[in-house]
């Protein structure tokens, strides 16, 4: 499998009223062709910032350093006009809140039509028929009349299907799904996740899934990258992350899942709280909450290293130094 997207040493800072927020701190990550890579982390860890950085949709107060290489091109160096041809056409994106991510004053078909016109997509029949066809692919019942609806006339699940259909129209190589099911009920969530797996199977779409929910990761991810406070701490195949997490943070997270019953076990408590990224801790950003931390962890940021085949960890306490 080839690498479709490679993020190298990415830094993102936000200038805010209170100072510089060091949101992304040297992230390196590969997305392989045809896989579902899940980027998981808690609120404010920077996972959505990465997705917006890839699309170059960060607000103006952000400064970005590093490389984002998509099919050999560094997206961060492309002129805006070239970047526009990548957005929507090469890389599609769907968002958390299907309620607000569609324009309320235009019909579904009007909003989908734009994709065909802007990217000059080939149509076998009329654009409208292509749209109806796409809506059918994402299993929207009564597609003709739904195409003429306004977003508020659709349920949350239907809106998210519309978003998927819209991004599907250009058959993108990479789909970034930013918390696509967080706002949905579990039965609808299951439907949307199945839809995404179908896309992957039928169109060979690569999916970068951004989520805070380990359950969603377990459902559809092939590989997982775990983020904490702007750094990637562990990358591994999905089964490894659940059965053999090597980073102390990942392990605590897995032990915090509500498995078992209260009468059988207490859930894992990660002490303290997520650091303030205005003044992040030096070195490994997890060290203030880590039960294994020592002086080395405060000194310098641990490199991310392959400790087992396909299993990468950024921690001084595992892999090469495991014997300590």
């Amino acid at each position, binding site marked *: 499998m080839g690498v479709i997207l490679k993020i190298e040493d990415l830094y993102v800072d936000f200038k805010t009223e209170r100072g510089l927020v060091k949101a992304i701190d040297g992230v390196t990550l590969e997305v392989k062709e045809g896989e579902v890579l899940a980027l998981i982390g808690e609120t404010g860890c920077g996972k959505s910032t990465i997705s917006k950085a890839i699309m170059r949709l960060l607000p103006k107060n952000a400064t970005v350093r590093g490389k984002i290489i998509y099919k050999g091109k560094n997206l961060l160096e492309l002129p805006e006009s070239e970047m526009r041809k990548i*957005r929507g056409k090469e890389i599609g994106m769907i*968002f958390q809140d299907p309620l607000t991510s569609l324009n309320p004053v235009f019909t579904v078909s009007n909003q989908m039509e734009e994709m065909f016109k*802007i990217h000059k997509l080939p149509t076998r029949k009329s654009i409208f028929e292509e749209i109806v066809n796409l809506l059918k692919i994402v299993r929207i019942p009564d597609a003709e009349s739904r195409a003429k609806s306004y977003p508020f006339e659709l349920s949350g699940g239907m809106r998210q299907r519309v978003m998927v259909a819209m991004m599907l129209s250009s058959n993108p190589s990479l789909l970034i799904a930013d918390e696509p099911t967080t706002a949905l009920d579990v039965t609808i969530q299951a439907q949307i996740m199945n839809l995404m797996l179908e896309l992957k199977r039928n169109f060979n779409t690569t999916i970068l899934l951004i989520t805070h929910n380990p359950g969603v990761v377990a459902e559809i991810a092939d590989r997982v990258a775990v983020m904490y406070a702007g750094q990637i701490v562990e990358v591994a195949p999905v089964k490894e992350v659940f059965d053999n997490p090597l980073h102390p943070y990942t392990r605590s997270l897995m032990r915090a899942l509500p498995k078992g019953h209260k009468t059988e076990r207490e859930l894992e408590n990660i002490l303290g709280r997520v650091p303030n990224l205005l003044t992040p801790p030096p070195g490994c950003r997890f060290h203030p909450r880590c039960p294994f931390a020592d002086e080395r962890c405060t000194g310098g940021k641990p490199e991310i290293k392959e400790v087992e085949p396909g299993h990468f960890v950024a921690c001084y306490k595992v892999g090469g130094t495991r014997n300590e």
Partner: protein
Amino acid sequence: MKKQLIIRKFFSLLLPIFVVSVFSFSLLHLIPGDPARYILGDFATPQQLAQLRHQLGLDRPLYVQYISWMVKLAHGDFGTSLVANVPVSELIKGRLSFTLKLTGTAWILAWIFGISFGIISATKKHSLIDYGITTLAVFFMSMPYFWLGLMLMLIFGVKLGILPISGPGTWKNLILPAFTLGLPQIAVIARLTRANMLDVLEKDYITTAKAKGLPDTLVIYKHALRNAMIPLITYMFLQIPWLFGGAVVTETVFAWPGMGSLLITAIFQRDYPVVQAIVLIIGTLTVIANFLADITYTIIDPRIRAMG
């Protein structure tokens, strides 16, 4: 848009119009003491007083007076001016076109310049042009019409001598009053447009539009502007009665023979039928503007349209 909704809204018109009519009607009766004596002064004879009372219908019960007043109104009879001794409707007819010319021009100026400046300001957020427009806007909003009018007069009439400074006449006479009335409104609309645009540009669906690869022009002029305009449409109508308010002062400053200057003259001459009529007209206009704002808002926003 459902018919029932329009009908229901139409009925919601009647109540405020009733309130407005009662208010204008009672103008005469709320004056402390005897309105007839108030109008004629201390040296009026009892006969004169009785005659005026009869002429105004003051010798009948209030509700009868109100009903007969309304019946006359329905026939286009606004009563007779106490000073000019001609029907009020004729007096107003001569003045109305001047006021409409003035407010209409100001309204058009306000929207053309207001929206344009607002969009420029929003798209060039935090640039020099943006700061220029927003600061200037606050300045114009901080000037009373009468002083702004005088200053324009002073600059363009007296110092530069390129525009006539008062009275009716050619279209040139309209320029200064129209700008006096229009400039603060341009400022208000520019600020509203800017604020709405900035609000909308933060929305998720704008990010979606950008993520689809749409060029900025399409994102701004299609996706953002359409949404930003929705609250502004309401203002388009609400602003009309406010322009009539501003016209009162502007007309007085420029000796523009409209309804506003008529109102002021009538107040000083205690010509109550005229005052009543003008307050009633502007009140009704306010209610209608409110109604139209409501209806357009309902038509333009698909979400509300469907709720019906």
